[in-house]
């Protein structure tokens, strides 16, 4: 017989343990299947139909017609490009900024650390409607604080219609998204940096590394898993940027802030074209999955 460190369980005991494990999992499993798996399958299924989700007008099977239409839809393309711009800009800046803040604050005294964490986490826990309303006021063309201040210091002559101008609107959205996205990464980085084995950093110092070198050679590899997690969740959140758009611009002006998520909502719930909307959802899911897989692969390579 093979000897293992763990005392081996009798088969009866093990079976009983497996059974009770599934029993404990059951509630969340039912929830998961009912509200995640089934809708996902339905989504894929209806994407091949011209579906109105209406009993009076039965679904018509259209094959790949929805996908072909997507391919030709300039609004969808615009939405996809905007979404990718949001992701490509916000993911690295959120990760870099939160790492920078966390590095600066993680060694501070407890009360100061808590204060900073609180400040950066506040936008996350505040309702997005409340935050967005404040931003809407700040961006306002006539009485917004940005125009007021910039005009006051003489940086601009005429008020800028931040949200109404196609060249600034998307950036306004990105800035708000940024402020609501950095809270959690900062908290995660603070704890990751605090958990870096102090003796490794000391060993590097004794070995002759300066602060920058000991950061890249010791701390950075240690916090790599946290970085990966932050990048993946920020990517997913950025892809799914929706509430901001709905509250601020509804995708305008002239689709300048149209995102895939908002366009799905618009197509499905305003135009009642569920099949078409679901086809977009599938494309979005594929994008997110591929990008996340790529990020995991990249992290592993390093």
């Amino acid at each position: 017989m093979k000897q293992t460190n763990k005392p081996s369980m009798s088969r009866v005991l093990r079976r009983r343990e497996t059974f009770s494990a599934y029993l404990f999992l059951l509630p969340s499993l039912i929830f998961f299947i009912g509200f995640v798996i089934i809708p996902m399958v339905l989504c894929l299924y209806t994407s091949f139909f011209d579906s109105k989700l209406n009993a009076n007008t039965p679904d018509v099977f259209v094959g790949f017609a929805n996908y072909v239409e997507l391919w030709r839809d300039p609004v969808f393309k615009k939405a996809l490009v905007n979404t990718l711009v949001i992701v490509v800009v916000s993911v690295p800046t959120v990760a870099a900024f939160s790492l920078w803040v966390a590095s600066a604050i993680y060694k501070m005294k407890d009360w100061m650390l808590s204060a900073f964490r609180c400040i950066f986490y506040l936008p996350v826990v505040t309702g997005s409607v409340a935050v967005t309303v404040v931003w809407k006021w700040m961006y306002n063309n006539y009485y917004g604080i940005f125009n007021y201040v910039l005009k006051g210091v003489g940086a601009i002559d005429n008020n800028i219609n931040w949200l109404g101008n196609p060249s600034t609107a998307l950036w306004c959205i990105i800035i708000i998204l940024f402020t609501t996205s950095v809270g959690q990464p900062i908290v995660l980085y603070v704890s990751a940096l605090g958990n870096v084995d102090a003796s490794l950093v000391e060993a590097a110092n004794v070995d002759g590394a300066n602060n920058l070198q000991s950061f890249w050679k010791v701390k950075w590899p240690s916090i790599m898993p946290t970085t990966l997690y932050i990048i993946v969740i920020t990517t997913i959140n950025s892809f799914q940027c929706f509430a901001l758009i709905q509250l601020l611009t509804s995708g305008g002006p002239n689709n300048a802030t149209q995102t895939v998520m908002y366009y799905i909502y618009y197509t499905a719930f305003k135009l009642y074209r569920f099949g078409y909307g679901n086809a977009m959802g599938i494309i979005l899911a594929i994008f997110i999955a591929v990008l996340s897989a790529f990020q995991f692969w990249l992290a592993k390579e390093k």
Partner: protein
Amino acid sequence: MATLQLKNIKKIYEGGVEAVHSFNLDIADKEFIVLVGPSGCGKSTTLRMIAGLEEISEGELYIGDKLVNEVEPKDRDIAMVFQSYALYPYMTVYENMSFALKLRHLPKDEIDQRVRWAAEVLDITKYLDRKPKALSGGQRQRVAIGRAIVREPKVFLMDEPLSNLDAKLRNQMRAEIIKLRKKVNTTFIYVTHDQTEAMTLGDRIVIMKDGWIMQIGTPQEVFDHPANIFVAGFIGMPQMNFFDGELAKNGEKYQLTVNGCPVEIGESLQQALKEKDVPSKKVIVGCRPEHIELSSADNALKATVDVSEMMGSEIHLHLNCEGKDIVIRVPSTKLSAEHRGGFEFGTDLKFAFPADLIHLFDPETENNLI
């Protein structure tokens, strides 16, 4: 290769804990110094101050002739082996060992040469491509030492490097460190709580307690002439036995009685007491287990056997002597055949102190009387 000077060094941690009080020590070039003492006595703190990992609250530290209080660890030219080894987990053994050299921009072939030399010395050449987590404790220990010796530093610091190893490996590594020292000719400061390591490795040992230095001396000195009761008890296994005694000055001669029995004082001790002009007083008498002898003389001290431990070549007898527990070591060759295997519980015995091998301490100050 450098001398070190620690002048009135003090460490007060945030929150007011004074971990090291006024530490004074001059270390010669290429000397092997061991800091030893019970856990929490400030050994690591002292070592970390030398490394620059902990700020020196007061006092001055010189490496060579240079005051280094404000010098960063990376510029002190020291190497350190940590108790936890602190190997970089994401680097291979080779990368771990070459890290410091790369930071110093040494040419590639010289780095390679030095790493391979160190690996050879420590017998870890086979593992150069492995990551630390694929190594056993003893192998990691070697890598940690290897990482330090490739550097050829001025001072080599080690903080309890063997305490995570099992007893057998510890003995083996201890012997290797002695060998290593001949190959890497530099100044060593070694921290341990283990008196055997201290005695076998150190040129001089510094015995610490509660942040104070108790005694500095060669292993021989601290063993033969412990400065106080703490050192006497700390150095030597099993511990030195202590008895309450009465010292009386009788004309030119000192007389000592323990439990009412007269104990002979050797000539050199008599002389030393006389020179110090020690008055008649109560004293604490110390005698090591290996020095106490069984005796049949009329005026010998009486005791009964509690436990008798057969250790092979000798027997450790735990005795009860008028309510005090004492230990004596008796070589089995000195015992009659019937007692080679030990003594029955409750056996009455008598023992005596050899005149030259007793130590006298002041009960109040706990310091050695001479």
